[in-house]
């Protein structure tokens, strides 16, 4: 069952987003969608920051840009560990400072392994052999195996307690469609978390989304926050 929380204006939007993440506990692993700013669920991230949970592990492709969204969450001291593929960017100063000060842990994962490890979590796969990273420092300490003449390393699933995802339109069943490259990690993260919270700009009646074009079926969606 998907709960749909609708905001009527900007103030209400914050309250609704707050309600949607109110049960995220200290120490939770939170998967956060987006590739740079595209698909980043800013309203939910801001709500998570206001929530004040500590010792979070956050999984995202990057480690925040500028001073808003994920960067602001990091600046608030809520995050103990970042799991990402590309933390270092021209405007990742918040993360850079925390990292150099030893105030945040970092696990760098090649981008495809990051996506596939979350897909494995959602798909009930216990582990998989990936050719990505073989022979590099990121494979150190990992089990290696040659299969059919090719070298692979064993990768384990990444599960989230929560996923925060931005989609385009939801129906009241929780079915989702996305927009262009803002789709990115959203559909995978939605499958990999115990509780998936999605922000959309519009909700339509059940039956209004064409069943052929649904990208994330409602079974993966626990809460939809509609932010106008």
């Amino acid at each position: 069952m998907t709960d749909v929380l609708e905001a009527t204006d900007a103030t209400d939007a914050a309250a609704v987003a707050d309600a949607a993440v109110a049960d995220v506990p200290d120490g939770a692993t939170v998967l956060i969608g987006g590739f740079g700013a595209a698909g980043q669920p800013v309203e939910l991230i801001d709500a998570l920051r206001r929530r004040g949970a500590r010792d979070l592990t956050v999984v995202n492709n990057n480690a925040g840009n500028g001073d808003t969204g994920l960067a602001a969450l990091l600046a608030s001291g809520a995050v103990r560990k970042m799991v990402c593929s590309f933390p270092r960017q021209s405007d990742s100063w918040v993360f850079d400072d925390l990292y150099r000060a030893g105030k945040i842990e970092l696990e760098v994962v090649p981008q495809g392994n990051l996506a596939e490890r979350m897909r494995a979590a959602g798909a009930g796969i216990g582990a998989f052999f990936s050719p990505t990273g073989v022979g590099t420092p990121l494979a150190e300490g990992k089990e290696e195996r040659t299969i059919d003449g090719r070298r692979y390393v064993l990768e384990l699933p990444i599960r989230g307690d929560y996923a925060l995802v931005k989609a385009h339109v939801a129906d009241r069943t929780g079915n989702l469609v996305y927009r262009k490259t803002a789709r990115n990690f959203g559909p995978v993260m939605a499958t990999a978390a115990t509780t998936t919270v999605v922000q959309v700009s519009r909700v339509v009646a059940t039956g209004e989304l064409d069943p052929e074009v649904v990208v994330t079926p409602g079974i993966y969606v626990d809460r939809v926050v509609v932010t106008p």
Partner: protein
Amino acid sequence: MSDRLTKDQIAAMIADDIPTGAFVNLGIGQPTLVADHLDLERGVVLHTENGMLGMGRAAVGDEVDPDLINAGKIPVVETPGASYFHHADSFAMMRGGHLDVCVLGAFQVAVNGDLANWHTGAPDAIPAVGGAMDLAIGAKDVFVMMTLFGKDGASKLVRECTYPLTGVACVSRVYTEHGVFEITPAGVRLREPYGATLEELEDRTGLPLR
């Protein structure tokens, strides 16, 4: 002897070597120049790791859409026949060997095709790999576009990489200001030298170049 190649000439040479109808990923930075030289008539399709086939040129003016960006987070446009997919599908496409060519920058390439392009090995550097390792092992052909010599004059084509690796024995060609180096099981072969003789380049790189 011809002059050293400019970046644009190198990019044009790469574009010429991309087969008709190929599916291609262009890495962040210099490799994006290749797009400017692709003949659209030849139906080359660009892949971007963040979930799209049929990526077009950089967006300008009203075309800019924050939901439509490339791997370098630059707004782009879509071309007819484009498609969108999620990250696991995008990297499955890459890892599964479905891309014909990817073009990457590099710090170092070894004579056996080892690639180092993600980390200088400096102890205080914040490591960041992005999709480089997936691209390095995924595309059927991995082309590197780089200067042959670093600012300190050291050859970036090396017997063995000293920087941390991105991928093992994955590069097939290295496009530089001095020409195209083909990585083969029999050794490195320079197609045609630019701005220096084969002997001079053998001397400066310290490598046998057939």
